[in-house]
């Protein structure tokens, strides 16, 4: 066990041990942006499609992380917004006869609106009941659409308006948009958590009764998180199905969407912004290893991933990020609030260490005096 843990740590953390400086970080950002822009001319279509999928999955996982890791809402029905986003985009594009990318903003708007209404009912449920409630809602929507011939029924619909986009640009555009959504999901969540709403969300996650008793509007904070997560999943879902040019209830509302989000977040580290990034890398690395290298069929690789997720829950319930963050220079995207006047705190610490009132002996290291 220890050995496995150590090897995993070495493998993931072999990048460096020094804390990265500001210049270092920004140069990494610049290189990444440049890499994304030129990527479509460098890598093949298959690689583009694969990376697009991974980046959209990261966005969805980050949304699920916002819900479960920061708002205390474990949704098992997040796939409903993936599907609704896709359907919203398809029908908006088809009925308005415009290229799918132009109506992309409609997908998150539709999902946000649906989430805002659904929240009124779902928020009456807590914990496991909420999880089941969201799942049932997703299944109901899926069934309704598959019974509605005007929406393509069970067979689904294609995306003829994709022809309005120059075929040479279809793949690169999907790739860039996916990258933008992935980045937005990470930094958008970061900005949200750094805000006042974020502080409220974290108190709600930790203890909703205590949060209300210090004046936090628990319902409102959860509502904001739920609506944002719905919009994010809707946007990612819409782009995802634009890439396949076809949507059907069986794929759009597949519970495997939320299962993948969950596995990624749990493996990577729930309640951290870096966790889903790490999780998505591990998830896709595992999937490719199992399917391509070992040649496992779809069913078997899912079993493999499931076992990895169970192992993660058993041995590292906080995920892998807490294990490797020290090696990677601490939290890259910390949402911790630091007190504003370090000298005052330092003075207080010194005073406390002087009188030894602290049972933990904080600030007193061996050889201190």
């Amino acid at each position, binding site marked *: 066990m220890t050995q496995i843990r150590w090897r995993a740590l070495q493998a993931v953390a072999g990048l460096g041990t020094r804390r990265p400086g500001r210049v270092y970080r920004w140069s990494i950002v610049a290189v990444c942006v440049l890499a994304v822009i030129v990527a479509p001319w460098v890598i093949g279509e298959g690689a583009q499609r694969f990376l697009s999928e991974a980046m959209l999955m990261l966005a969805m996982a980050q949304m699920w992380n916002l819900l479960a890791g920061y708002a205390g809402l474990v949704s098992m029905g997040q796939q409903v917004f993936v599907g609704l986003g896709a359907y919203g985009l398809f029908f908006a594009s088809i009925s308005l006869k415009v290229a799918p990318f132009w109506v992309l903003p409609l997908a998150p708007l539709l999902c946000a609106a649906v989430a805002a209404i659904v929240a009124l009912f779902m928020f009456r449920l807590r914990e496991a009941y909420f999880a089941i409630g969201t799942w049932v809602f997703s299944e109901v929507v899926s069934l309704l659409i598959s019974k509605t011939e005007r929406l393509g029924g069970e067979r689904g619909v294609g995306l003829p308006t994709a022809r309005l986009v120059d075929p040479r640009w279809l793949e690169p555009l999907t790739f860039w948009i996916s990258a933008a959504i992935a980045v937005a999901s990470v930094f958008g969540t970061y900005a949200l958590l750094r805000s006042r709403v974020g*502080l409220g969300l974290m108190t709600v996650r930790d*203890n909703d009764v205590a949060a209300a008793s210090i004046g936090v509007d628990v319902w409102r904070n959860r509502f904001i998180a739920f609506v944002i997560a719905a919009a994010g999943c809707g946007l990612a879902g819409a782009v995802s199905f634009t890439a396949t040019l076809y949507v059907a209830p069986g794929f759009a509302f597949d519970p495997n969407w939320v299962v993948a989000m969950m596995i990624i977040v749990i493996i990577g580290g729930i309640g951290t912004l870096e966790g889903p990034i790490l999780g998505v890398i591990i998830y896709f690395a595992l999937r490719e290893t199992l399917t391509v290298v070992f040649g496992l069929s779809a069913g078997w690789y899912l079993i493999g991933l499931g076992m990895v997720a169970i192992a993660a829950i058993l041995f590292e319930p906080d995920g892998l990020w807490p294990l490797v963050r020290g090696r990677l220079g601490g939290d890259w995207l910390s949402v911790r609030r630091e007190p504003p006047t370090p000298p005052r705190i330092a003075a207080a610490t010194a005073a406390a260490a002087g009188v030894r009132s602290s049972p933990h002996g904080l600030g007193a290291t061996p050889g201190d005096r």
Partner: protein
Amino acid sequence: MSGLLEVAGLQKRFGAIVVADDVTFSLDSGHCLGMIGPNGAGKSSVFNLIAGTIAPDGGTIRFEGQELGRLPPHLRARRGIVRAFQIPQPFPHLTVYENVLAAASFGAGRSGAGAATAALDVLATMGLAAKAGVLAGQLPLLDRKRLELGKAVASCAKVLLLDEIAAGLTEPEVEELVALVRNLKTSHAIIWIEHIPHALRAVADRIMVLHFGRNVLEGRPADVMTSRLVREIYMGFRADDVA
């Protein structure tokens, strides 16, 4: 009568069980009302009614002259009615500083530097300044209780509802807590449910005895604690019978 908090004829029952039966009292800032009574007498229920987590069947709660009605708990907290729980309820994954900062941000409605400064001040008052960066979930019990009070103070509470906050502490720790509460009394109205008599006597100006949801007695601590009625209620027999 124009107290900061005025409770009149408060009624609440759960089925056949009466938890509040015509509870009436009034409280001003700078005063501490002790509340005693056997388990199940309805003490915590009175707190729940005042804090808004349960709705009364009858009676009124007026705060700063305004009827609270069905105001939800978080809005009562923002107005200044804040409770400290019997089992401290910190936000375990946030630091001590963030716990208090959240209270200053939401309860007191401060933001930015104002919230940060207020949070630091409260930490200093509560003797927690040195532990600002510690995760609240890792604090020892007395510090958790301090933090519980700190959150209430940072929320700009006017009425503090203290629910058996001395429970589980060692004797010297109780002393420390009593000093802290006495200090808070100068600027707050306090209702304190407590089973430790000397702690209450040291701080409370009046003590109210609840029995089956009724306030059967209210008076000066010394009188109440030595009263025959209190002995009867706690011992479960009439004092005359043994005499």
